[in-house]
């Protein structure tokens, strides 16, 4: 099995391998070791619970970046009845790090936009590791404006290490593209929901994240800077990412405590990569439920609420 295993998962995998071996041994029917197998399976179950309920924040970051974790297109495939991808920002080119298009979910027409990572080296280069250039954000905004024009709600899926820090990105106004999205998204006259499915990496994530409801998957993270980046600036050592991840408080539970997000979606024990369909169906349920909720709110009211929601984020003392 070429499974991708983290250090903290090794005891579990060892045990699972052992169980597998015993199953093979038992298969020829010569010895009855079913009691032993049951015992070991129980033990494995316990171990999984123990490991995954005590993950530290850095381990959670690793799960959020797991190479087998479902990406935007994997969700789109599972939650939509049909999907038509739309390409290009009408200004420069099509950015493959962002996927955008029109779809129906349970017959409800809407626009879906998300960061897209690639699996494997070749696809990762094609998708630029899910790190958009300005044209990606401008494509996203174009499709959002299209949705607004035709009264379609918008769902965004967030999964990026951050906006691409490169020459071309700066030349074409990475900062302006992000700022423009933050500004324009605040007053879109249709309901808009964001789901953080993996990495919510800083401004590059937020540029798809100014929404009426913010949902996070159980093993996703949302942060102002990558733990590595923070560690190399504040601790002058990128190897202290572990420490930085703790300090930055980046888990869904952290964000719920800070009253930034609205809901946490369950993943299977150990993370979404263990069962794509399960997570996708949870995501779908949550989107439908939130859309129902938002549908009932007058759009002018919704926009004021959206602006005020972000307006209320902050901790300070006044004289």
């Amino acid at each position, binding site marked *: 099995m070429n499974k991708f295993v983290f250090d903290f998962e090794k005891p579990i995998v060892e045990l699972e391998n052992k169980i597998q071996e015993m199953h093979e041994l038992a298969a020829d029917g010569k010895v009855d070791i079913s009691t032993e197998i049951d015992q070991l399976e129980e033990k494995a179950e316990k171990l999984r619970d123990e490991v995954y309920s005590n993950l530290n924040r850095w381990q959670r970051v690793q799960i959020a970046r797991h190479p087998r974790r479902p990406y935007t297109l994997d969700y789109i495939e599972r939650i939509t009845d049909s999907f038509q991808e739309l390409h290009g920002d009408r200004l420069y080119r099509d950015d493959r790090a962002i996927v955008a298009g029109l779809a129906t979910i349970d017959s409800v027409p809407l626009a879906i936009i998300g960061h897209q990572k690639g699996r494997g080296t070749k696809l990762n280069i094609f998708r630029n590791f899910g790190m958009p250039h300005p044209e990606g954000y401008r494509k996203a905004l174009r499709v959002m404006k299209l949705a607004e024009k035709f009264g379609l709600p918008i769902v965004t899926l967030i999964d990026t290490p951050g906006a691409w820090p490169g020459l071309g990105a700066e030349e074409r106004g990475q900062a302006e593209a992000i*700022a423009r999205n933050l500004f324009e998204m605040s007053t879109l006259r249709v309901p808009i929901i964001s789901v953080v499915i993996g990495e919510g990496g800083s401004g590059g994530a937020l540029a798809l994240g100014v929404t009426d409801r913010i949902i996070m998957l159980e093993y996703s993270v949302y942060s102002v800077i990558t733990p590595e980046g923070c560690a190399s600036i504040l601790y002058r050592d990128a190897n202290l990412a572990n420490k930085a991840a703790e300090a930055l408080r980046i888990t869904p539970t952290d964000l719920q405590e800070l009253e930034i997000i609205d809901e946490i979606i369950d993943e299977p024990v150990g993370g979404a990569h263990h069962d794509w369909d399960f997570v996708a169906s949870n995501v779908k349920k949550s989107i439908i439920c939130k859309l129902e909720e938002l549908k009932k709110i007058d759009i002018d009211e919704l926009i004021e609420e959206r602006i005020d929601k972000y307006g209320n984020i902050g901790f300070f003392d006044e004289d």
Partner: protein
Amino acid sequence: MANWFKRTSDNLEGSKKRELPEGLWVNCKSCEAVLYAKKLERNYYICPECGHHMRLSSESYITLLTDEGTWKPFEEGMKSQDPLDFRDSKKYTDRIAASMKKTGRNEAVQVGEANLDGHEIVLAVMDFSFLGGSVGSVVGEKISRAIDRAIQKKRSLIIISCSGGMRMQEGVISLMQMAKTSARLTRLAKEKLPFISVLTDPTTGGTTASYSMLGDLNLAEPEALIGFAGPRVIKQTIGQDLPEGFQRSEFLVDHGFIDQVVPRLELKQRIAEFLLLLTAKSPSFKSVSSSSEKEGGSTSED
């Protein structure tokens, strides 16, 4: 033993890291001319030899831009909390305290009402000497309230940016200040009140990627570093040296993101000129703009 030679983070503080040069003489970093400090200060930290713009304190910008006796600051007492109980090599609260002591101010931005060449404005000026002008809850809130004040008093908004980006020590709360300020600016836009953004050296990260880039007009001081990613990060990414002038004000004008590069000593006059044009409201044309005001092309109820 070798520790004697190592800078331990705790023992350097304050005086060595001052932004404003001390002593009688100062070296211009650009042309290396030796300059008389007092004279440099009187010249708003512009090198009289080569015109290089050095960093300027928020006080000096206020003096430079506002009519005498008109500056009325608000929210001066607002102070940061430590919502994440953050510590790296130092506690966040200690860093804040040190910055307050060093600058004599409570945070990285000053906001107030003022007159600029007779124009009634709300002015926000960031200060790099306070934790690198980083944006946390207080800066986000003060900028937001400056926007509210401009709306309430029907004034134009001027923001002078000088910032390394979002403040890591407040984590995702800092990140959300980008959304907070940008969203709030939509209300100013709806009232058709002018927002002139002035970007100074440096304006990077989330600050650029939010309110600093959202001016009706974006002006920049000469040769200011302006960008999203820092040059060091980009250099690491592409593995080669950056082209001459990359991410400087003039580069941003060339690429279409800044309207004009304006030398510091001309800023006041230029802003006044723009405000005159943007707030002229010639009666015959005003009615045209208000009838096409309907948002998002939606049909109206009445």
